[in-house]
C-alpha cells in the first residue's frame, strides 16, 4: 500500500517534519561536513518487510572511481559495517558510532490492519481521518529510520580514522549486493554468549581501579550517565505517547461535534461546527508538538543512550587492554625470575603495553570529543525544542483566540 506513496521520494511526502530538518539530516550530532567526503541518504523505499536506502556519496578522494555516486543498501548491510568496525582490533581505541536500530513498522502496520478491519463500524469521515493519521505516523517512523541510518554514516565519514576504512569504502561504492546475510541462529547465539561474557568481564574490569584520574572519572560518570539517559529516554517516550493519545481523543471529539452540529437546528449548531473545526486544527498542532518532542527530545536521548553505551564499550576495551598489560607484566616478571622464555614474554609485554597506550591516547581524545559533541547536540536540540514548542503554542493560541472572537461576537 505504501510503496506507491513513498516511491515518490521522501521530499514529496506530507511535510511532517519541520523545515529545520531539511538540511543535513544529522540532527542529533554536530558534525563538520568535510568536503573530501560527504555522505547522505538521498532516497528510501519501503517494501513489504524491508527498507532500501539509497546511499549517495560525494567525494574528492582519489581512491573512488567517481566523484559522485549512489548505491542501494539495506539495514543488514549497515549492521555488517558496524560489526566490522567493532571486531577490528585497530579501532579498539575509538568510540564506534552506534549502529542504527532496525526499521520497525510492525506496530504501525498492525494499526493499519486493524483500521482496515474496523472500516465498517465507523463513518466515512472518521475512517479517512484515521487513515490519514496512520499514514502520517507511518511516514514519521520511516523518516526517523532514514535519519538514524544517515547519522551513522555521517559519523563514520566524519571520523578521521574510520572514514578511511576499506569496508566503508566498499559499502559506499560497490554497486552490487554485498551479500551480507543477517546473522543466522548459531551466530546470534554466539553473539549472545559473547555479550554475557563481556558483561561479566566488564564487571571485573570495572572493578580495577584506574591510576589515571581522567579515566577513573570518565568511568564513574559514564556509568551513571548511561543509566540516567536510559531512564529519561523511557519516560520521555511514555510522555509523548500520552500526548499522542490525547490528540487522538481530540480527533474523535471533533467528529462528534461535527455530527452534533449538522443535526442540531438551534443557534448552538454554529458553535458546534466552529468548535469542531477548531479542534480539527488544534489536534494537528498537538500531534505536531508530540512529533517534534519525539524528534528533538526522545530521539536525542535514545541516540545518546547508544553513544554512551559505545563509550562504555571503549572504556571496557581499554580496561581489558590494561588487564592484559598487567598480566603481561606479571608474566614477564615470572619469566625473568625463572629465566625462561624471557624474550617471548618481553615481546608479549611490549605488545600489550603498546596496545594499551595507543588505546588510552585515542580514548582520551574520543571521550573529549564525545563530550563536545554531546553538549553541542543537546544545545541544538533543546534550543530547537523550545523554539518549536513556542511556535506551536503561539499558533494554537491564535487559533483559539480567533475562534473565541467569532463565537463571542455571535452571542
Amino acid at each position: 500500500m505504501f510503496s506507491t506513496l513513498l516511491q515518490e521520494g521522501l521530499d514529496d511526502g506530507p511535510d511532517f517534519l519541520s523545515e529545520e530538518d531539511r538540511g543535513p539530516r544529522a540532527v542529533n550530532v554536530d558534525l563538520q561536513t568535510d568536503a573530501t567526503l560527504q555522505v547522505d541518504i538521498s532516497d528510501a523505499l519501503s517494501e513489504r518487510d524491508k527498507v532500501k536506502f539509497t546511499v549517495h556519496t560525494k567525494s574528492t578522494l582519489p581512491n573512488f572511481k567517481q566523484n559522485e555516486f549512489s548505491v542501494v543498501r539495506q539495514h543488514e548491510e549497515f549492521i555488517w559495517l558496524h560489526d566490522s568496525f567493532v571486531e577490528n582490533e585497530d579501532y579498539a581505541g575509538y568510540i564506534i558510532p552506534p549502529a542504527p536500530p532496525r526499521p520497525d513498522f510492525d506496530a504501525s502496520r498492525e494499526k493499519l490492519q486493524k483500521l482496515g478491519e474496523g472500516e465498517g463500524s465507523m463513518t466515512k469521515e472518521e475512517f479517512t481521518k484515521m487513515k490519514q493519521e496512520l499514514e502520517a505516523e507511518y511516514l514519521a517512523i520511516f523518516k526517523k529510520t532514514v535519519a538514524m541510518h544517515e547519522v551513522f554514516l555521517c559519523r563514520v565519514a566524519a571520523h578521521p580514522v574510520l572514514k578511511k576504512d576499506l569496508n566503508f569504502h566498499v559499502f559506499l561504492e560497490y554497486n552490487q549486493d554485498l551479500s551480507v546475510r543477517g546473522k543466522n541462529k548459531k551466530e546470534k547465539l554466539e553473539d549472545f554468549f559473547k555479550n554475557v561474557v563481556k558483561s561479566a568481564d566488564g564487571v571485573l574490569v570495572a572493578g580495577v581501579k584506574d591510576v589515571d584520574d581522567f579515566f577513573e572519572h570518565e568511568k564513574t560518570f559514564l556509568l551513571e550517565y548511561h543509566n540516567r539517559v536510559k531512564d529519561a529516554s523511557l519516560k520521555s517516550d511514555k510522555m509523548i505517547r500520552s500526548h499522542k493519545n490525547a490528540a487522538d481523543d481530540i480527533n474523535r471529539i471533533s467528529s462528534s461535534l461535527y455530527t452534533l452540529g449538522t443535526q442540531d437546528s438551534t443557534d448552538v449548531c454554529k458553535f458546534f461546527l466552529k468548535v469542531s473545526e477548531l479542534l480539527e486544527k488544534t489536534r494537528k498542532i498537538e500531534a505536531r508538538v508530540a512529533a517534534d518532542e519525539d524528534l528533538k527530545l526522545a530521539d536525542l536521548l535514545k541516540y545518546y543512550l547508544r553513544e554512551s553505551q559505545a563509550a562504555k564499550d571503549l572504556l571496557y576495551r581499554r580496561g581489558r587492554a590494561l588487564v592484559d598489560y598487567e598480566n603481561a607484566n606479571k608474566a614477564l616478571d615470572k619469566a625473568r625470575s625463572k629465566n625462561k622464555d624471557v624474550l617471548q614474554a618481553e615481546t608479549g609485554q611490549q605488545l600489550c603495553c603498546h596496545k594499551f597506550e595507543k588505546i588510552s591516547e585515542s580514548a582520551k581524545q574520543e571521550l573529549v570529543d564525545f563530550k563536545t559533541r554531546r553538549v553541542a547536540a543537546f544545545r541544538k536540540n533543546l534550543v530547537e525544542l523550545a523554539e518549536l514548542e513556542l511556535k506551536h503554542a503561539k499558533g494554537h493560541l491564535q487559533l483559539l483566540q480567533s475562534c473565541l472572537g467569532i463565537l463571542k461576537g455571535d452571542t
Partner: protein
Amino acid sequence: MAEQTDYREPEPGRGEEFSPEAEPLNSNGQNSLLEEEEEEEEEGEDLFTEATEEVSLDSPERDVLLSDGPSPVTPPASLISPHLPHNHLYTHCSFDEMEEEDTPDLFDISILVSDPEKVGEGMNAYMAYKVTTQTSMSLFKSPQATVRRRFSDFLGLHGKLATRYLHVGYLVPPAPEKSIVGMTKVKVGKDDSSSNEFVEKRRAALERYLMRTAKHPVLLKDPDLLTFLECSELPRALSTQALSGAGILRMVNKAADAVNKMTIKMTESDTWFEEKQQKFENLDIQLRKLHCSLDSLVCHRKELSVNTALFAKSAAMLGNSEDHTALSRALSQLAEVEEKVEQLHQDQAGADFYLLAELLADYIRLIGSVKGVFDQRVRLWQRLQDSLLLLQKKRDAEAKLHANKPEKLQQARDDIREETEELEGKVQQGERDFEQISKTIRKELFRFEKERVTDFKEVIIKYLESLVQTQQQLIKYWEAFLPEAKAIS
C-alpha cells in the same frame, strides 16, 4: 401574588402529601410518575382522580373554563392541579401570560453549594454541604439564606418535585446520582485524592442541580424548594436510601416500566411530537458518544500529566549527572519547565471534566426526563383510550338494557345511567388532561431548548477560554527556558 399560607398538610409532616403508609411509594427518583400510577391502580384507589375531583368539585374556575369549551386558543392555566392549594392556580395563570408574551426572565437568584464537611463517623457518617442563596426576588423571606444540607435532603427535594410536576409534563431536573462506592470511601475516612475528587464532583453537581431547578419558573415557586433553601431544619428524607425498601421497589418498578413502554403503541396525531421525539433520540446518542470521547480525553490528559512529572524527575537526575555545567543547568531548567507543564495538563484535565464532561452528563440525564415526560403523555393517551373503550361498553350495555324489559329493571337502568355519566366525565377529563400535558410539554421543550442553547454556548466559551489560558502559560514557560538553552556553550 399569593403566598402559600394555608398549606393543607399538617406541620410536622411538612412536605409529605399522603398518609404515611403511602409515603414510601410516592417520593421517588426520576421516572416517578410511572411507579406512582402502578401503585395507585394496584391499590384500587385512584389518588389521581381524587385530586382532580377536588378541583372539579371545589374550584370555581372550573365552570368558567369549561364553558369556554375546548378551544385551540390558549385556555388558561393547568386544570390538573399539581396537588397544590387553589391559590396557586393564580400564580400559574400569571406565569402563562408572561411566557406567552415572551418577556425575558425577571430572574435574579444565585445559589452556591460549598464547604463540604464530614459529619459523624463510620457507616453513619455523611457529608453536609453549605447552601447559600442570594436573591432579590420577593418570593424569598430574605435576600440571603444559608443552610446546611446533606445529599439525601437533595434527593428528597427532587422526589417531591418529581411527584408533583413530572406527571403533568414539567421537566423536573434530575438529581445527581447516588454512588454507593464513592460514599463508602468517604465514610470510611479515606482521605485521598480520589475521595476528595468525588466530594468535589458531587458538590459541583449539587450546585448545578439547584441552579437548574431554580431557573424553572414553576419549580422556583414550589414551597418545598423554598423550604429547602431557607429553613435551617429539614425532616430527614427516609426513602431515598439506595438499599431501603423503597429504593428496591423503585428499581423493580423501573424494570416494569421498561417493559410497559414497549407495549404501548400510540397513534400520534401530532407530528410535532413525533419529530421532537426523534430529535431527542438522536441528540441522546450523540451526546453519549461525545461524553465517552471526553471521558477518554480526561483520562489521557491525566496520564499525560503523570508521565510528564515522571519525565521531569528523570531529566533533573540527568542534569545532575551531566558534568558540563551549563548543560547541567539547562537540563535542570528543562525539568522545571516540564514540572510546570504537568500542572497545566492537570488543570486542563480538570476543565475538560468539570466544564464539558459534567455538562454533557447533566444533559444526558435531562433528556432522560424529557423522554419520561413524553412517555407520560403516551400513558395519558392510553388511559383516555381505555376510558373511551369502557364508555363504549357501558353505552352498549345501556342500549341492550333498554331493548329488553324496559319497565322491570328501572333500578338497573338508573345504575347504568349513573355509571355512564361517570365514565363520560372521566373521558372528558382524560381529554383535557391529554391536551394539557401536550401543551405543557410544548412550552417546556421550548424553554428547554432555549436553556440548552445558552448553557452550551456559555460552557463552550468558558472551555475555550481555559484552553487559551493553558497556551498562554505554555508560551511563558518556554520563553523563559529558551535563553537558558541558548546559554549552553
